[in-house]
């Protein structure tokens, strides 16, 4: 076995003298090996991540309509223009409200489901799968189900059938911004798609809480239920909660798929990314302004995540993040 591998090695890595086997050659070649392993990734990262980012910052200071090669330097005019655009600033405000609502709800629902499933003795795997499986469905497919079958606003939609049982007239869920029922559509869709994924994270964390903590609490007279939940379970889940909230926040600001598909050309409830898409790739094809918007949104997300990291305390986050 070892002889064959030796031969293989000598043929597969001819750059290295096969005879000089001991440490020195290993150390000398470790720089080369480092680049052999990381080179493809790093080159791609530079080309497809760093270069576009740099280019985008550069473009944001130029007049660049219908072209990606900038013509005239215009300073902060693109920033001025996109911040004066009420659609864009409106979407930033809307989405801060959206995030403030969807993040705690998803956190609560996924934690609730995890607590339920964790306590089950039999059929645990079955229920875990049921809550988890919506993760397999794309936002597009889910938007299609929600828009065409549940909340389609006509008589044969499922939601209108259900409210019809209580004698309520048809509700135009998506087609009318007042009252804003479309938020119910969006929020239920997101909850359905996301909760199972975060439930898995919470389940893993729940399993890692040492049983002795609960035993000790029982001896000290803590009532199982609310007290142990508040004083043991919740603090023990702190690290997971922090991570979950961070992921949810980032996901909320990056919302695109379901809004694009549910609301289409509607003027209400549009997230920042849809506004960026319209600016940069829509009729105006204003790459300069679109880039300025992307920079603003990136900075906003950075500030929010850093701020959230500060309050929730990424205390030992240095190594884990």
């Amino acid at each position: 076995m070892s002889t064959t591998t030796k031969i293989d090695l000598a043929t597969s890595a001819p750059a290295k003298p096969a005879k000089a086997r001991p440490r020195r050659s290993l150390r000398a070649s470790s720089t080369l090996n480092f680049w052999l392993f990381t080179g493809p990734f790093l080159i791609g990262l530079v080309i497809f991540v760093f270069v576009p980012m740099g280019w985008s910052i550069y473009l944001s200071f130029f007049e660049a309509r219908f072209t990606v090669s900038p013509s005239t330097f215009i300073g902060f005019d693109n920033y001025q223009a996109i911040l004066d655009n009420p659609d864009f600033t409106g979407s930033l405000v809307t989405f801060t409200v959206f995030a403030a609502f969807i993040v705690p709800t998803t956190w609560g629902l996924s934690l609730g489901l995890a607590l339920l499933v964790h306590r089950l003795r039999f059929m645990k795997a079955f229920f875990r799968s049921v809550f988890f499986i919506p993760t397999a469905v794309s936002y597009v497919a889910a938007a299609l189900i929600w828009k065409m079958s549940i909340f389609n606003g006509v008589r044969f939609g499922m939601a209108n059938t259900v409210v019809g049982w209580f004698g309520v007239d048809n509700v135009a869920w998506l087609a009318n911004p007042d009252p804003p029922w479309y938020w119910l559509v969006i929020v239920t869709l997101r909850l359905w798609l996301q909760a199972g994924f975060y439930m898995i994270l919470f389940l893993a964390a729940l399993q890692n809480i040492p049983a002795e903590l609960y035993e000790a609490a029982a001896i000290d007279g803590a009532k199982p239920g609310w007290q142990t939940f508040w004083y043991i379970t919740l603090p023990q889940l702190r690290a997971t909660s922090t991570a979950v909230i961070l992921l949810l926040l980032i996901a909320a600001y990056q919302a695109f798929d379901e809004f694009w598909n549910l609301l289409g050309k509607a003027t209400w409830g549009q997230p920042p990314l849809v506004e960026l898409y319209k600016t940069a790739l829509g009729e105006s094809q204003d790459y300069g302004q679109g880039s300025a918007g992307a920079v603003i949104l990136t900075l906003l997300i950075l500030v929010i995540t850093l701020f959230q990291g500060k309050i929730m305390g990424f205390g030992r986050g240095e190594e884990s993040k």
Partner: protein
Amino acid sequence: MTTTAPDLRKTPGKKRGGKVIGNTGLYIATGVAALLFLVPFYLIVRNALMTDPEITGENWKWFPTDIQWGNFTEPFDDTTVDFGRALWNSWVVAILHTSGILLICSLAGYGLARIPYKHANKIFYAVLVTLMIPTAVTFVPSFVLVSSLGWVDTYRGLIIPGLFSGFTCFLFRQYFLGFPKELEEAARVDGLSYWGAYWRVVVPNSLNFFAAMATITFISGWNQFLWPLVIGQDPSAWTIQVALSSYMTNQTVNYHLIFAATAISILPLLFVFLFLQRWLVQGIAQTGIKG
């Protein structure tokens, strides 16, 4: 895998008396939640197997009178949207996306975790920086780059820009940091280079983690929408998600056709979930805790 066994021990089984009601309540609550979570799946199946008059009829019908299996071939015969092409594109993109990411990011993760190099830390920080920048936000600059390369409407444009995932690289690095060093050292004593040790010792002993990452990556590759929408300007380059999305804005709506198409689009992932859930759950639990 050891998930259920220690758990049974943890739940106190002593005081049975008042627990019966508590347990019934628990199962009722879980059952009701589970039913609600299954409603959308039920709707897909119901609508995919009905005729349009049944779906849009005056009164809500729970089940089709005659199961319309023929609905499943209709998307492929539809002339407005080339569904077969979109399905094929999705397979190509998802498979190449998954294998590419796994190859490139695992190698980089291993290099960063295990191969000594004086600037390795600085390079790792540069990778971490990209984690702070949400990928979806960079679609404008990425599109600018890809279009100037002439990659719009091509597989290259759909796949290559997404291969360099800082997050996947980071997860692989964390995993390899925890990989038992003794195994590699033994391989090195036997005369294997880093490259040889990686392919002959490290990878064969990490298949569980690779399977978990492959599952997660495949799902995200199959389900991604924004990037294919931006790149697929011509219908021939559409993926299945873009095709589904186009059904919603079409002038004429064939409910049974649309839902049959949706069912077809979800099917591969349901298989992934049913057969690979073990790795998936393990992968999410591992990576989630670390990330």
